[in-house]
Each structure stands twice: as C-alpha cells, then as structure tokens.
C-alpha cells in the first residue's frame, strides 16, 4: 500500500482541488480528507455515506445551579478564564473550558460535572472512483490531530479490506499537530504552493517538516502565472534543493468553473491547460512507484 499526502503550509493554495483531480483519474483508490477543521473534498467527490461515527474530543464542565452555593472557588481556580459570574450565577463558557476537571474536584458542593463533547464525527463512503474517509470537527473543538489519526487509521483498514493500493491524503493547513498527524508514515509528500512571498515562506516550512520525517517530497506550483517572477524563484530554490518540481498549474477560469459544477477540472475541462498539467503530475507520482 502506498500513501501520498498533499500538503501546503497554508490554506487556499489549491490542495483540495488538486487532490480531487488526482483522485478521479486512473485506478480506484482510497481518499482520506484530513482537513478535519474545514473539510471540503466531499463537495467535489460527493461520497455516498455508508456509515457515520461520533468522535469524542474530550469533556466540558457544567454547573448544576440547584446545587451551587456560589462560593466562587471554581472561578478562582480556573486558569482558562472559562468561569464567569454574571447575574448572580456562575456559568462555564463551553468554548473556553479545557476539560481539566479542576473545578469539579474543587467544588465543595459537588455542583460541577463533566459532559462529553461529541459533536464531532467521521464517516466512510464511496465516490465515483473508490472509497473515502472524512471527518468533521465540531466548532471550537481541539484535538484535531487525534481526529486526523482516526481518519488515517480508518482509511488504512478499509483499504486493506477493499484491496486498494493507494491512499491519497488531503492534508490540513499549517505545520502544527494536525499537519504532522496527516504526514507521518506516508511515502510521498506533494507540496502545493503559490507564487507569492507568503506562499514561498510556507513552502520552506512545510519542506522542513517533510524532511524531519524523512519523507521524500515533490513540489507543484499552483496558479504559477499569477507571478512568474516568484514562480521562477521557487523553481530555482527547488533545483538547488534537488527537489523535483513536477508541475506548474496555470491560473485558468476552467478550474473555478469546474468547482462550481462540483466536478474536478480533469473531468469538467479535460482539454484545459490545467487538466493537462495535472495529468502529467498524475503520471509522475503514480507511475514512478
């Protein structure tokens, strides 16, 4: 089994559009959407859900107002500024509570208990060229790295059961915990960048991350013709690093048009220059096993 992760330092570089295009070409495969904070790949791949599973991100404290004696000990102890006194009562802000349970332990009236936060979930399904695992983190939740691990593990198990050779992973933005979870143990990292100062800066950070894991990486410059000067600086940097630059996707209305049709650019506009470039990227990463 081969796992390929598509990643970029930051959001908005075109990871998902590229992942979807690569997922709808060639042999049947498994797609894992690891951008659990703002998953979008399902909009293009339109999977049919086979099963949905709740995911617990931890727990939050709540105060039973009947039992509360208003001593305020919980508010003094809370280091997350999650407990407020307002209109003669203490309340806990769900978004600020970190689930440490200290308030519950401290409360002399046993008025505080913990409730599990399970607004998050992950699903498996099929799409027109294989299987897909994706997830949704409830607003304001943390532990996205853990949810990414669940998506990775489920996609691996399902691929084994279904006899799929390839897992294509659409990674989350950033270089933090979720990006690390999406990247660890993969065979190839496809780094997507844009020709801008901030895009270049983020590319360097994400390359460091891939190197840290010893994962071979290749680069694709998306919308390369929006600034050919910066694009050529990125190309030079890649050459100096012996980093294969395997595609320069032009900025084309066809890419946006296909998205509006909820199709990938290779399906909607197969004759466009962008589709041609993506086909070459596909050949490069899938035929050079």
């Amino acid at each position, binding site marked *: 089994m081969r796992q390929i992760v598509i990643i970029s330092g930051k959001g908005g570089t075109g990871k998902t559009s590229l992942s979807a295009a690569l997922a709808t070409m060639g042999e049947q495969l498994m797609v894992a959407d690891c951008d659990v904070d703002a998953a979008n790949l399902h909009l293009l791949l339109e999977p049919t859900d086979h099963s949905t599973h709740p995911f617990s991100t931890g727990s939050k404290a709540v105060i039973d107002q009947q039992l509360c004696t208003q001593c305020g000990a919980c508010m003094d102890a809370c280091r997350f500024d999650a407990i407020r006194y307002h209109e003669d009562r203490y309340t806990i802000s769900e978004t600020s509570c970190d689930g440490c349970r200290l308030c519950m332990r401290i409360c002399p009236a046993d008025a505080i208990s913990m409730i599990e936060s399970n607004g998050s979930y992950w699903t498996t399904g099929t799409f027109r060229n294989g299987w897909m695992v994706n997830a949704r983190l409830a607003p304001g939740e943390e532990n996205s790295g853990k949810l990414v691990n669940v998506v990775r593990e489920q996609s691996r198990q399902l691929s084994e059961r279904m006899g799929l050779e390839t897992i294509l992973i659409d990674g989350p933005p950033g270089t933090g915990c979720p990006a690390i979870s999406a990247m660890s143990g993969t065979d190839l990292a496809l780094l997507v960048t844009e020709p801008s100062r901030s895009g270049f800066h983020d590319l360097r950070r994400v390359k460091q991350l891939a190197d840290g894991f010893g994962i071979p990486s290749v680069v694709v410059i998306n919308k390369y013709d929006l600034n050919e000067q910066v694009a050529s600086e990125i190309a030079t940097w890649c050459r100096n690093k012996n980093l294969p630059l395997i595609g320069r996707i032009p900025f084309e209305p066809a890419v946006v048009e296909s*998205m509006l049709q909820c199709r990938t650019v290779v399906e909607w506009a197969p004759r466009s220059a962008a589709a041609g470039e993506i086909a070459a990227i596909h050949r490069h990463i899938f035929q050079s096993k």
Partner: protein
Amino acid sequence: MKIAIASGKGGTGKTFVSTNLLWVAAQKGIDCLLADCDAEEPNVAEFLAGEEDRVVEVYQLVPVIDPGKCTFFGKCYEYCSYNAILYLPERKMIQVLPDLCHDCGACSYACQAGAITEHPKLLGRVKHATYGAGQQLVEGRAEVGVYSPVPVITRAIHEAGERELVLLDSPPGISCPFIATVDRADYVVLVTEPTPFGLHDLQLSAATVRQLGKPFGVVVNRAGLGNNEIYRWMEQESIPLLLKIPFDREVARIYAEGGLPAAVDGSYREMFSLLLTQIVEQHIS
C-alpha cells in the same frame, strides 16, 4: 472598538483585508492598531515592515515534581486530564511530560506533600512594532511545537490595548485559536470567496460566530470568479454584505510581492474606506 477579520479557511484574503483596512484607517487619522493573531503562521509582517519597539515573552507554568518530597501517593497523576504525568509507583518514578501539560494547575492542587512547584516555559513572543506614520502592529508568534497558540493570541490582544480601532487578523479554522480571537472582538468580518468551498466554510464560520453571539458581516473576495450561490444564501440568512472585492490579476501580483493595493491605487483606497464606513455603521446599528 475591536474588529476581528476571520474566515473558515486560510487563503481567502484575511491578511489582505486587514492590512489594507489598517492603511486606510491610519490615513484618516484614526488611532488604530493591527494585531496578527495567526500565531502559528504570522504573515502580516511580510506586508508591513516596521521598526520593532519591544518584545513581550509569553510563558506557561509547567509543574516540576521534587522526588525527594514526593510520597508517591499518585493523586496528581489521577487529577491530570492530559496524561502529562508519568507515574511508576513500584519503581518510585514520577515525572511531568511538559509537552502534554495544559497548565491547568490540577496537579498542584492535588499534591498534599508540597512536592510540586511550577516553572515557566516559553510559549511564544508578542512583538510591538511601529511603521510608516505611527501605525502600530502587534504580532503574536508561537514557538514551533507548542501545544496551543491560544495563550500567545490572548496576550497579543491584551497587548493591543484599547484604541479607537483595533484590527485582529484571526487564525484560520473554527477551532480554539479562532474562538480565542473572535470572542474578544466587538464585530467580526468574515472574508470568503464566491465558490462552493467558500460557501461551505462561510456556513461553518457564520454558525460559530452566531453561537458566540457576535455581530458580523461578510466581505466577498475575488468576486466575479465564482457564482451567485453565496449571495443568495447570505440574503436568506440576512447577513450583511460589507464589500465585494473583484478578482484582479494586477492586485494579486502586487500583493504577492508584499505590496498594499490601497497604498498604490485610488480605487482600492476608496474600496477599503467604504468597508471601514460599512463596519462602523453595521456595528452601531
């Protein structure tokens, strides 16, 4: 007043909107400041190069257990909700794993033997800078590999202080770092794109902002590139459209090189002035 510039996802143009908005506000003589709250990937400084005034370091407290005083009772281990204490009583071994510690203080409360003291650990820095005609910038930058940038973000907002106008450039997503920023704002500007991705992310972030009870409006960036679904949805939901920024290759080029369109192009100056007026009106109404 504090205005957060946010979006469900990265790459929609938050930093583009906040930097140009700051430039326009400063030109109008408003006492304003921009706080870069994207502490994991702060990018504002690439557009506004200023003179650094001072740096504030942000710490969390990490417990240290004195094995000489520890009675190996194990209550601190039991109280830790984050698995940050390694406890092997039969081998008389106990240790804090600082990377997993959330600085909640439960272990210190649990310890009856006085064996736990708390020591500071560097989480990040908040940098104050001035540039141009007295325009102020505050940047939160978390150390690489820290568990959460939230303490750095809240400190950056605190350092921004009270002014006529404080702009908060929010981190992407809808999880804790986003909440920490938006929760401290009086008004939220959501930046999006008129595509199915943009609409989907806007729906998630709008739901989150509503949950927090914050008034908000939307800036549609790269207008003309996509379709009209987003406007239809906003109308249904009665969400104010503050501004449409047309897609413009030339602007993309200027911005890619680190320039500010409002500073070099009259029509952009007008556009962002209008946005500022709209925000103030929406906020008051």
